[in-house]
């Protein structure tokens, strides 16, 4: 059964179409990555799944149920815009959110999560006294207590240090191992590549990618060369059959034009510089993202 089934959904705000005739199925137990430039419709789609926004057209079913003006106890939601009651103590706040969603006492679970995130010592402190990173962890706990069947996370890793991000990632994957379906949006393509079973990209309200990483990459074929060579990237300018060079510092990524022979590129390269590594590969998700979103997304993608 699909955890989420979106059928021909359109949502407009005044003259702007935020989501345009979207159809998407999120299988139960999957980690589904939502990617796309800012303002492309990711958050609107998530808000419609949670039922904060209602679609203008189309239907959304969660665990085969259509939510009409109600909230499902099975959905945990972490919005991109972080905000909690600053004057409340951490434990009271988490119990409040847990009871609000689950309708039962969640004291034991709250303590378990606080321990996991090394926040037990802050349990009686007010939110306003915590650092930004600690507040984000508290907000994540608020979204997952009691354990939801569907977890929707909008930019869960933004602003977290690597250690906290690791703890968060482990927790998400652990929830998945216990049967939860996870939808997460991210601007970090490595997160999408490494964590997600399936990836969905939305651009200007329309679905432009949907599938496993492999199936998405297969659409583009082996059109990318990864090269390490002496000297700077200027040595790669004007290579025959190369459409674009992306300088990653120690490595350069070359995109070949249709019909280009990699051997021909290699021959041209060795005449210019000393090549230390050369591999023909499929494009990275980052590259695919940039190819689709173009200049509008460059800023986000590079960041």
């Amino acid at each position, binding site marked *: 059964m699909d955890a989420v089934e979106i059928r021909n959904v359109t949502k407009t705000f005044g003259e702007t179409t935020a989501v345009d005739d979207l159809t998407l199925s999120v299988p139960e137990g999957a980690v589904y990555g939502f990617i796309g430039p800012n303002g492309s419709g990711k958050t609107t789609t998530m808000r419609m799944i949670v039922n904060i926004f209602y679609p203008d057209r189309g239907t959304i079913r969660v665990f085969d149920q259509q939510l009409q*003006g109600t*909230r499902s106890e099975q959905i945990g939601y972490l919005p991109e*815009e972080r905000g909690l*009651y600053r004057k409340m103590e951490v434990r009271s706040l988490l119990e409040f959110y847990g009871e609000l969603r689950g309708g039962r006492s969640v004291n034991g679970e709250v303590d378990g999560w606080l321990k996991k995130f090394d926040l037990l010592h802050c349990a009686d402190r007010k939110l306003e006294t915590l650092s930004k990173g600690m507040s984000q962890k508290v907000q994540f706990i608020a979204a997952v207590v009691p354990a939801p069947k569907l977890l929707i996370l909008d930019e869960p890793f933004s602003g977290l240090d690597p250690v906290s991000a690791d703890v968060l990632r482990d927790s998400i994957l652990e929830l998945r191992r216990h049967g939860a379906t996870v939808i997460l949006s991210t601007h970090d393509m490595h997160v999408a590549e490494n964590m997600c079973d399936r990836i969905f990209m939305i651009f200007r309200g329309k679905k432009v990618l949907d599938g496993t990483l492999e199936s998405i990459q297969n659409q583009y074929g082996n059109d990318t060369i990864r090269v390490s060579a002496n000297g700077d990237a200027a040595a790669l300018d004007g290579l025959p059959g190369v459409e674009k060079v992306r300088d990653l510092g120690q490595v350069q990524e070359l995109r070949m034009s249709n019909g280009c022979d990699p051997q021909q590129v290699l021959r041209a390269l060795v005449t210019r510089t000393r090549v230390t590594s050369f591999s023909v590969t499929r494009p990275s998700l980052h590259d695919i993202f940039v190819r689709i979103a173009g200049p509008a997304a460059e800023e986000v993608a590079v960041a």
Partner: protein
Amino acid sequence: MRRILRIARRDYLAVVRTKAFIIGLVLFPLLFGGGGIASSFLLRGKAENTDRRIAVLDHTGAAGPAVVAALRQRNHDESTGKNAGLQVTPQYEFDTVPADGAHPEQQRLELSDQVRRGSLHAFIEIPAEALHPHSSPPPSVGYYTANGADQALRWVAEGVNTGLRRAGLAELGIPEDRARDIAGTAPVENMALIVRDPQTGAVTQPRKRSPVEIVVPIVMVVLLFMIVMISVAPVLSAVADDKQQRVFEMLLGTATPVDLMGGKVLAAVGVSLTSSVFYIIGGLLALEAMAAFGLAPLNLIPWFFVYLVAEVTMLCAMGTAIGATCGSPQDAQHLAMPLLLPVVIPMFLFGPIVQQPNGPMATAVSLFPLFTPLTMMLRQSLPGGVPAWQPWAGLAGVLIVTPLLTWAAARIFRIAILFQGQRPNAAELVRWAVRG
């Protein structure tokens, strides 16, 4: 409903557990009513009671001594009579000044200078025609003072006129003791209407109204006004603050906008009931301590709570909707006054309603649902009350309008809560309320 109650519990405890609420609960009535009592107590027998001199400039040549005698008596009654011989207002000395018929302007200027220098508090000028007024209206007596709000003005007129009447009677040769009878004034008491006991058939005895009997119901109206104000105004800024802090989207993941708004309104009703119970029990205990428990308007207390719940529900629902349209608590503060107009306007109409509690204006205003709680409460609390059907008719209007307003407010709230950017105008709010 479970979520509404859980949100209400959080919001209610977030308010009543604060020191500000507890201190405000005690301080608010002190600031409203206790301030006056405290200042009278503090000023008792102090600076205000220093003796003052008033000159009586008599152009009649005959009335001066009688006027001065009457003024002294009146001042004595005023300053001590109501307080068992204890002086609570200034003691005035009166001196007759013979009129300078040749230079009246110069004489007025000299007396005015004395007032300015402080050697005189004021002077009273009695015109020559005052004893035998042939014009209509009669010539007026002048009271010259530096302070336009001089408290002595309240009783000087009665003293002067008593003196003039006695001087006139003396001219007619009427003996002084008879003149006192004729020129004296009898106090008029505020009496309750006579009623027949429906069970025994006995007719009640004439009964003087106690000032407490009038004050206590009016205190209930002021209490209703005060509690609505302190319950509703914070909701507006609290909602705007929650929106600014981005609290709502997280909550909207688990509760609907109607749950959120319902919880907030219910919490505000709970806060208002807590304050009311505190004040009403306190008031009843105070009356009991004063051995005046019988004056407590017990029949009005249920109406008080009904009106309170209706008013707080209506205004808080609108307050949450309006607060959700604001980008910050500062924005919300600008909208507090328009939101509170349904309780502020009735307070402006307080005077006319008290004068004619069953007049057409008072009746119409009290049947307008937004104004019903305060105006009907006021009319019901006044002696004589209102026709029995009117509170029920008013309540029916309130019960129709409150759910409608709450429904419209919920529709606005649902859209406004995640709305960012420029604040919507009134037309947009109406469109959101109608179309959702």
